[in-house]
């Protein structure tokens, strides 16, 4: 094989290889027929919504009334309305706080901590811890949120029983903290799994030599482990940011309340567009959300490309 590429017959090989690509004898037309249904479905329900949001966001579309039958083009009014509305900025601020504490800090640190603490143990404790964390991630969101409502219940919830804080209404007095912890509970499994595999790939020789020169655990972490898994940390942070930014599940715990204190962007869009009936305004905010998603996704592409090159 290696010699054949250097022979003058190279030009004769090319058409044969091209034919070998199509071993099943599909032909371009049939291949097109095979691909088309999937692409059409993706086009209508994934690509088109993204494009249509732009137009929809420039109309006064409503769920009911005159504007439902014949929506009018209102240009950038919806964007002006959204961007001058304090409740939009409040929602964006809440989303940032939520993503920062629940995703970037909470899930990443706890996920890393869990991966770190089980890395050297084997047997049932490791299985139990990993199993519990994974189960929290697998359980359907509606069930997970109900479990937390039970746990945090004002009158007889387990947390109040354990902490001796009878009658503390966590979801009313600390709604943001509640959904942050809830979301950490739901999502940490991903970071834990990612860091587990990253940690197992750190060369043991480097840790050994760090120990030999007397580096403390903290120093080992800072000088050996973190530089080794830097790429994983970045990937993890970007994916977690994207997912936390888009999650709707906190709605199941607090429904955006009390008084909009947990109305993160996804909930805000829902409340504006569907119960509120202002589809045009909702679409305008959707587009803002799509653009933020786009920025995070592109950052992720850049990071993963850089990693592949290395």
């Amino acid at each position, binding site marked *: 094989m290696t010699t054949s590429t250097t022979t003058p017959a190279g030009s004769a090989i090319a058409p044969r290889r091209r034919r070998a690509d*199509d*071993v*099943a*004898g*599909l032909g*371009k037309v*049939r291949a097109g027929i095979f*691909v088309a*249904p*999937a692409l059409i*479905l*993706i086009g*209508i*329900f*994934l*690509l*088109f*919504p*993204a494009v*249509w*949001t732009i137009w*929809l966001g420039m109309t006064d*579309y409503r769920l009911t009334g005159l504007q439902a039958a014949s929506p009018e083009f209102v240009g950038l009014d919806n964007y002006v309305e959204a961007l001058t509305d304090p409740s939009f900025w409040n929602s964006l601020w809440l989303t940032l706080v939520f993503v920062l504490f629940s995703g970037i800090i909470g899930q990443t640190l706890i996920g890393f*901590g*869990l991966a770190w*603490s089980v890395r050297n143990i084997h047997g049932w404790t490791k299985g139990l*811890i990993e199993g519990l964390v*994974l189960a929290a991630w*697998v*359980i*359907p*969101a*509606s069930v997970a949120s109900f*479990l937390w409502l*039970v*746990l945090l219940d004002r009158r007889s919830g*387990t*947390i109040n*029983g354990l902490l001796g804080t009878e009658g503390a209404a966590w979801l009313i007095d600390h709604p943001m903290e509640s959904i942050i912890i809830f979301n950490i*509970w739901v999502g940490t499994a991903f970071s834990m799994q*990612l860091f587990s595999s990253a940690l197992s790939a750190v060369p043991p020789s480097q840790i050994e030599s760090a120990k030999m020169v007397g580096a403390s*655990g903290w120093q080992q972490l800072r000088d050996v482990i973190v530089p080794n898994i830097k790429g994983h940390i970045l990937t993890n942070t970007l994916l977690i940011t*994207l997912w936390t930014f*888009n*999650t709707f*599940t906190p709605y199941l715990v607090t*429904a955006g309340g009390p008084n909009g204190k947990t109305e993160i962007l*996804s909930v805000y*869009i*829902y409340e504006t567009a*569907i119960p509120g009936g202002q*589809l045009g305004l*909702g*679409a305008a905010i*959707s587009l803002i*959300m*799509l653009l933020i*998603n*786009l920025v995070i996704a592109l950052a992720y*592409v850049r990071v993963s490309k850089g990693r592949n090159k290395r």
Partner: protein
Amino acid sequence: MTATPVRKVAANSTVRHFLSRVAFAVIMTIVGVLFALPMVWLVLAPFDATPSLSLSWPDWTLDNFARLAENPYALRSIGNSLLLGIGTMIIVVVLGALAAYAMSRIRIPGRDGILYALLLLSSIVTGTAAMVPTFQIITQLGLINSYVGVLLVLAGGILPTVIFILKDFMDSIPKSYEESARLYGAGPFRILRDVVAPIARPGLAFISIWTIVQVWGNFLVPFILLRSPDMQPAAVLMYTFYTESGQADLRLISAFALLFSAPVLIIYFVVNRRYGFRFHGGIKS
């Protein structure tokens, strides 16, 4: 340069080391308990004759499940979830396999770029970010409150990932198999059905299971697209159970929660045991 300061430093760092380990262990124990508490309730409460919101050792019984079996809404919603899961699975596996196969075997210019762009698109246009246009499109198509609408939206969102994963499987199938099948006169459909599909079976099985798990837990899409209570899948009914019924019937809800969670938990841990952690990378929304 006496030995004393060195020893002092060493002793100091040992103490600090010990303290930091204790602190770490305490924090991780609290985290572990926090992870365990809701799960213990999920497992114990359904078997308690009088379940309450606080954790307690159950007064064992299976009556709650018998009650559940009599509740028409609860059972129907599980059936609806199955219908949506299997329906989406069929659409996604058939269309995904056809597309992945053609993309694997025919050179289309910029093929990998297109595939990657689609995958990226599916992580940008999520259920939450696209809920308004999706709702609007389904309304315009007259598919609001119909399973067809829900199935199409779910399948459209899942397909890019499915094609991406299946193409990997198809690429690994040796082309010589198809060549020899062709020598015996088999046409492309025949080859796909009798040669490629059986070899790609692990990939198809993985995709099927993964799709069902995704749809089983999906709340938002059926929540905004379905109106009739008797059409709702378990994920939505679970929510209306405790928000609209006023006084929550814990016997019913706890049994329902376990029945609804158990299938995915079992599937997940069986798959995880056999194939390792594979449900990752944009794969859970």
